[in-house]
């Protein structure tokens, strides 16, 4: 239940305020998310049975999660039968230690990696480095992040916050074999990365991947990608290690069909992605001789125990929710302090990590509850519902603390709003205070915490008469038809 490389980050509102200052970032994100949003809507509209597919995906995931123990044991059995080895990791440290020992056993100190958020979550690269092992990211965006000593800011497009001239600078600075005359033309940049990576692919003894899906019936792992680097990582090295969250499991091949219809359209807005690699265990003379599957818990079974929060485990990491989120669009991914940014991150990270840090307590509040994320989610995760639920968990966890100004305020207002008599008295007091705020009908400055409102917006002044008072005067007992306006 830890994400070691994300410790000690500031709460969301602070990090978001800093990100909002970056107008280039806002421009890049608005453009990028706007384009993908429109394309996704287009390809989703092509399928008349999209809603049925969504419902099927939700049902398959819910069923699998409800019987996770069964399907995990089945997967262990089928992978082992197919010649693979299965390891169980309770947390990030255990997963990293397993991978490190497997790399050492393979007699190397270098690995090539397929884009994997699970290993971002465990901080695998940093852990391997501490053990004398160099991990090379081979996904173009992940490579940009790694060379730039940066963090991913998007599930699908980790370097979405970088523009091409920044990428050129990073390559020239950090890639010893980058051509000297490299321009910021995307094709040249991709070619430079390809050259750089090709040598590594051909010499690497160990590949490390995640997986989009793991099929319990056959012990097959599935990686869905666009660049082909994943295909090389899972076929060229002698040893392949896949670190996979326990929630990635699907019962059978038939179930995969549903997800392969949903995932590319939701993520890259493609009808089908260019490369889908599927392998089962290890086969002599074809691909890796040695296959290891590391099944990662790291907070997942704790999340599964939660009635409302568990739906976050249905996530297939498509990032459609990020692309439609008005908060993500303006702030970017770094403020979420996790490899899982955006709406899904706001409900997943605090559950995987627990809600003890100020950052994790702030994440469920990083949403205006507009609901756009729920609408596009291919597995129908009701993100707004989970957000408000996690907020209540955050509030309840702090109830034992002696004093909180916010809790006092909410307690008092709840007490006032429970009774029509007290509400009426408060309204009368508000109307009487009207003279204090001037004649403009608006209030320009309020004390904290309400100053957060009036820093950029006027607040309405209370009216001379509440609706309730107007009703009593014009329609209540003792009023006459002449009182009616």
């Amino acid at each position, binding site marked *: 239940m830890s994400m070691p490389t994300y410790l000690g980050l500031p709460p*969301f*509102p602070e990090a*978001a*305020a800093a990100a*909002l200052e970056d107008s280039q970032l*806002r421009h890049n994100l608005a453009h990028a998310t706007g384009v993908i949003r429109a394309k996704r809507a287009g390809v989703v509209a092509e399928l008349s049975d999209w809603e049925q597919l969504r419902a099927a995906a939700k049902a398959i995931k819910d069923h699998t999660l409800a019987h996770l123990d069964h399907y995990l044991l089945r997967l262990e059995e089928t992978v082992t039968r197919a010649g693979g080895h299965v390891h169980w990791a309770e947390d990030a440290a255990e997963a990293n230690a397993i991978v490190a020992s497997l790399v050492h056993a393979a007699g190397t100190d270098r690995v090539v990696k397929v884009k994997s958020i699970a290993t971002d979550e465990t901080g695998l690269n940093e852990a391997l480095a501490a053990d004398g092992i160099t991990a090379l990211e081979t996904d173009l965006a992940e490579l940009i992040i790694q060379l730039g000593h940066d963090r991913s800011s998007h599930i699908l497009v980790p370097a979405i916050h970088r523009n091409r001239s920044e990428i050129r600078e990073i390559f020239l600075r950090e890639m010893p074999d980058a051509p000297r005359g490299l321009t910021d033309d995307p094709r040249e940049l991709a070619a430079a990365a390809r050259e750089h990576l090709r040598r590594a692919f051909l010499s690497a003894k160990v590949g490390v991947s995640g997986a989009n899906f793991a099929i319990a019936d056959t012990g097959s792992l599935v990686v869905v990608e666009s660049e082909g680097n994943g295909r090389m990582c899972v076929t060229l090295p002698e040893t392949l290690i896949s670190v996979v969250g326990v929630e990635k499991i699907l019962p059978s091949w038939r179930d995969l069909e549903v997800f392969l219809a949903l995932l590319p359209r939701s993520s890259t807005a493609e009808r089908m992605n260019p490369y889908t690699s599927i392998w089962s265990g290890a086969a002599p003379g074809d691909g890796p001789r040695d296959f290891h599957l590391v099944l990662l818990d790291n907070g997942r079974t704790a999340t599964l125990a939660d009635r409302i929060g568990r739906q976050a485990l249905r996530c297939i990491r498509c990032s459609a929710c990020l692309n439609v989120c*008005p*908060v993500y669009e*303006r702030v970017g991914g770094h403020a979420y302090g996790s490899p899982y940014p955006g709406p899904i991150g706001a409900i997943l990270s605090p559950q995987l990590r627990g809600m003890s840090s100020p950052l994790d307590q702030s994440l469920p*509040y990083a*949403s*205006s*509850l*507009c*609901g*756009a994320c729920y*609408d596009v989610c291919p597995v129908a995760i009701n993100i707004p519902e989970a957000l*408000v639920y996690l*907020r*209540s*968990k*955050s*509030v*309840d966890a702090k109830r034992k603390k002696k004093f909180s100004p916010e*809790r006092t305020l*909410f*307690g008092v*207002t*709840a007490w006032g*709003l*429970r*009774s*029509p008599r007290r*509400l009426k008295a408060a*309204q009368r007091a508000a109307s009487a205070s009207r003279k204090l705020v001037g*004649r*403009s*009908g608006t209030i*320009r400055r309020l004390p904290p*915490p*309400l100053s*957060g*409102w009036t820093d*950029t*917006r*006027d*607040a*309405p002044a209370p*009216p*001379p*008469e*509440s*609706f*309730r008072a*107007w*009703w*009593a005067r*014009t*329609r209540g007992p003792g009023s006459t038809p002449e009182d009616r*306006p």
Partner: protein
Amino acid sequence: MLIDCGDVRGMGPMRIALFVTCLTDTLFPGTGQAVVRLLERLGHQVEFPEGQTCCGQMHFNTGYRRESLPMARGFAAAFAGYDAIVSPSASCTAMVREYHGQLADEAGDARLARAVAGIAPRVHDLSTLLTEVLGVTDVGAYFPHRVTYHPTCHSLRMLRVGDAPLRLLREVRGLELAGLPDAESCCGFGGTFSIKNPDVSAAMCADKVAAVHQSRAEVLCAADNSCLMHIGGALTRQRAGVSVMHLAEILASTEDQPAVPRGHETAVTP
């Protein structure tokens, strides 16, 4: 769903309870008055159950679930026995319909759960009450101004009111309906989000305000006073000269009693 007759005489007189919401009750009484005037003009009988206070949405959405439970109980007590309940807030309507039942279940209160199951489907936001329950789109309104409509998130994605508000506005005489760019994107209000994440909220609001300016409307209309308070607060801060008005106020406006865009007059006096 009833057949839409597009006619003010589409339905016999009904007894309709008004759930005015605490925000509109306290800060925007003109909207509540407009709902009353409009429904009475259409021949219906409006009642205001005086036991009503608040649906508890602000507390619920901020994480104070425990505090919102008594408000859900109060709501069920105040509105039991009405065939139709109307609210000028899509957001509060959605709170009752989507979450009061969940609160009852969590509290293990079977009596409340039964009460909510009976009441929640009868709670309608104004636009659906008019178009679906009463079957009216032309309410005989007159409002000679250029208006743009912001579909609030909860009306759109929780209540799924669709284009009901636009159908109502299109029938208003004199009204020129202007398109709002990127209309379906959130204005950034989000209840306490506007206080807890003021910078992000303001950035979202700035984009919405820019879209309102692009529409060249005199009046921004929506079906939720909370979002209007937020966007309107930014508009008056900028002295933008664009007013905000609730859908009910425009629909209540007639040639005999024309509504004055909010901000052009500080209070509505009956």
